[in-house]
């Protein structure tokens, strides 16, 4: 039961570092304020509370970033993160899109989480995460500032992801020297993970090559109440009730959670048999109440003969990757690094 407290709060406090507990609990608190019972969202308060960070063309810890309006029609913005050159003068505006010199340069298109409603590409938590990905994977990261629910429902976020994919694919300065092609990976956490799957689908259908999908605690669901949802409801920061709210906010009005966007291998899902779907790395946290859906996703991919690796972190909660002070973080980063470099 959501909010039935004393025992539950102590449980979640036991399994994460204290500062992480404070961080995730503050988010939970803020998010509770923002969701209105009538399905509307307090966007002004959300933007007020969200901690944002500017892009920085000056390298910091070996990474520099800049923002691009990749589609002025829709005001779609993406933040580009690049490894800074070893030495030399500070980059000027001309250098920002200088061609890479690597034989093989992974380009990770990243979709931030937030259950389709929260956060932005310039949210501090995601800016930090993307910078870490650049360093660990020696990759370029393109973080997409996709449209959010409830103002923009399905398929807005997917459309933006698709626009970003096409844009990245056509940047000559992102090509790997080896084959003069852009080596694209899709990555995302929570709703971002869901977007990864759906953008990959569109890519395959259109003949674009995506080298791999990385899904961190991806957001999937369905009409059924699974065992993990019932068991973990309200215990580790998340409730069934809030999950339902976000799906109602994102899915087309009148649709239920068996809509394929929510439940890709459910009754309305389509088969991926025989399709050249990218290989997938799926990270599932043992304390995430929607893990049964995530595991069903993995199973769906396997049954369709697709390559998928499951990384199941028994003692992890949602959001563990936002701070580096835990072993799950290290493990996952290592796996992601291997995943994008094994080409």
């Amino acid at each position, binding site marked *: 039961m959501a909010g039935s407290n004393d025992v539950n709060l102590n449980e979640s406090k036991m399994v994460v570092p204290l500062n992480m507990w404070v961080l995730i609990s503050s988010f939970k608190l803020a998010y509770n304020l923002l969701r209105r019972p009538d399905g509307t969202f307090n966007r002004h308060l959300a933007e007020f509370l969200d901690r944002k960070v500017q892009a920085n063309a000056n390298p910091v810890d070996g990474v520099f970033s800049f923002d691009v309006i990749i589609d002025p029609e829709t005001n779609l913005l993406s933040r580009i993160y690049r490894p800074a050159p070893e030495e030399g003068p500070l980059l*000027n505006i001309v250098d920002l899109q200088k061609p890479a010199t690597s034989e093989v340069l992974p380009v990770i298109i990243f979709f931030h989480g937030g259950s389709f409603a929260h956060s932005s590409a310039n949210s501090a938590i995601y800016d930090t995460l993307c910078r870490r990905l650049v360093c660990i994977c020696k990759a370029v990261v393109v973080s997409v500032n996709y449209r959010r629910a409830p103002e923009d429902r399905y398929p807005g976020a997917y459309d933006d992801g698709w626009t970003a994919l096409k844009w990245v694919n056509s940047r000559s300065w992102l090509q790997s020297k080896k084959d003069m092609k852009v080596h694209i990976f899709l990555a995302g956490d929570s709703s971002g993970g869901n977007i990864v799957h759906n953008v990959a689908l569109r890519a395959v259908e259109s003949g674009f090559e995506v080298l791999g999908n990385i899904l961190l605690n991806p957001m999937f669901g369905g009409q059924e109440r699974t065992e993990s949802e019932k068991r973990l409801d309200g215990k580790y920061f998340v409730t069934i009730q809030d999950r339902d709210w976000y799906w109602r906010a994102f899915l087309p009005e009148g649709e239920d959670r068996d809509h394929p966007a929510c439940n890709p291998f459910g009754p309305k899902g389509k088969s991926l048999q025989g399709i050249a779907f990218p290989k997938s790395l799926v990270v599932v946290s043992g304390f995430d109440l929607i893990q049964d859906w995530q595991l069903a996703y993995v199973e769906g991919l396997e049954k369709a003969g697709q390559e998928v690796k*499951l990384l199941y972190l028994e003692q992890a909660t949602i959001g563990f990757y936002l701070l580096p002070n835990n072993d799950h973080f290290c493990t996952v980063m290592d796996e992601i690094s291997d995943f994008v470099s094994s080409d």
Partner: protein
Amino acid sequence: MKREHHQLLLNAADTSMASSFTGGGGGGTSGYSMVATTTPTTTGKSKLWDDEAQPGGGMDELLAALGYKVRSSDMAEVAQKIEQLEEVIGNVKDGLSHLASDTVHYNPSDLSTWIESMLSELHPSPSFDPMAAAALPPPQSLDDSFLTPAESSTITSIDFTDSSHQHHQQKKNIMQKRQDNMVFEDSSSSEYDLKAIPGKAIYSQIQQIESSTSRETKRLKLSSGCNPESLSPSSIGAFGVPTESTRPVVLVDSQENGIRLVHGLMACAEAVQHNNFNLAEALVKQIGFLAVSQVDMLQMHFYETCPYLKFAHFTANQAILEAFEGKKRVHVIDFSMNQGMQWPALMQALALRPGGPPAFRLTGIGPPASDNSDHLQEVGWKLAQLAETIHVEFEYRGFVANSLADLDASMLELRPSEVESVAVNSVFELHKLLARPGAIEKVLSVVKQMKPEILTLVEQEANHNCPSFLDRFTESLHYYSTLFDSLEGSVNTHDKVMSEEYLGKQICNVVAGEGVDRVERHETLAQWRSRLNATGFTPVHLGSNAFKQASMLLALFASGDGYRVEENKGCLMLGWHTRPLIVTSAWKLGNKSVIAQ
């Protein structure tokens, strides 16, 4: 089901709070240690908290990198408060919706205070004072000995009080005539006539600024006369000393220009805090007749096409209104008195106060008009007209001064602070003082003598005051590129060309000006904060209500054009997409125990 998959089970034995993976000196063990920390001593490190992320400050570095200021030693207590708050929310009827819609939130980076203030909203405890808890340590006292005497300049005092009836009557007759012609224009021509502060900069010869578009990048090219060095991209070699400052860059990737309409000002309804559109319409008409012809046309045009001045006035007024709550006599001292565009909205808001308006006194300070007309006087008359129609007791005085540094508090005939509360307002003015040594210190010291309830400050968010030309060039390149890009939404080429010409002059001053002639010495919020803190001012936070109203204002005037409001430690920033362009901050004197709402 789980067991059948290839899986990597992890028994996370070390997830207890004791294990921390702060990189820092840890080095070598794994590749990510270097990114997990923010050691401020090394150049080029991330500095979300420029002035506070010191190792000795005790702030949790990992949370600081994410925008949250929590002392490590307070972590357990903050956690406990969160639990407490969750419980209280569960127990209080409609607790959550009250906190969401009725409560004003401040400075969310200070987690502890934020949580505590929500607790006391729902569960009032007489001993807790959220504003006091957020107060900064007592400021250092200012040493006056270094202040240099100001150069002499002309100061004329123009006094308008209601008591001088005859004088007033004469003016009224004149105004009446003008008013018949001007006030009730039809709505299509009653635009909000925004006039910015005329600078005293001496601009160099070049006027025409072109922005050329490559396939993917917009670049600024200054024509050759502006600067002796050639400015083609290939000549941009090594830059000067690498700064630790942030260089936010927003590029526009466009094959074609997006054409968006920028609608003129519809109303100051939001500024009045009451959604009264009749009032707002009347206001717009009154603003229309405040316009005086002899102004810098380019400046005026720029501010009409862009929402910057609207935002500045609106947010500053919000802070002033809150500071004046409960006061019976108020006095605004405006350092940026130009056409007085900021004041009708404030006066209306005061008029609508429950309990009635205070007596409103305005002192407007501005430079001499280029045509030697008494423009400050005229503005005062018109505001007096307005005051009369809305039944606000009004008093006005205009001061013409070449520099704010020429002022002394004694000239202003201030009344005791128990009798009359003072607000000092400065919109895009203070940075000009940085051109002369000692000037800013003198002015801030004079402000202190005014004993203001509040000082509202709006400035460009840019670091355009570096000593090195190349640094200024780089910084201004990014800043003005973004400004130009934001202009792409302008409806016609004429608007765009005029705006670009205006900005071009400003750019020349920033980049090519020197010494006292270089007045566009924009500095960042961090720099202003530092200066004001050192001078004895403490922040007055702008809250979620001001944020919301400013956002709604933008939606009205510049909808869909990419403008965004952002909160930063109690200040509000207006930016284009992710690049902040101007900042509104509010300040009070450190040793006052006044709590701003």
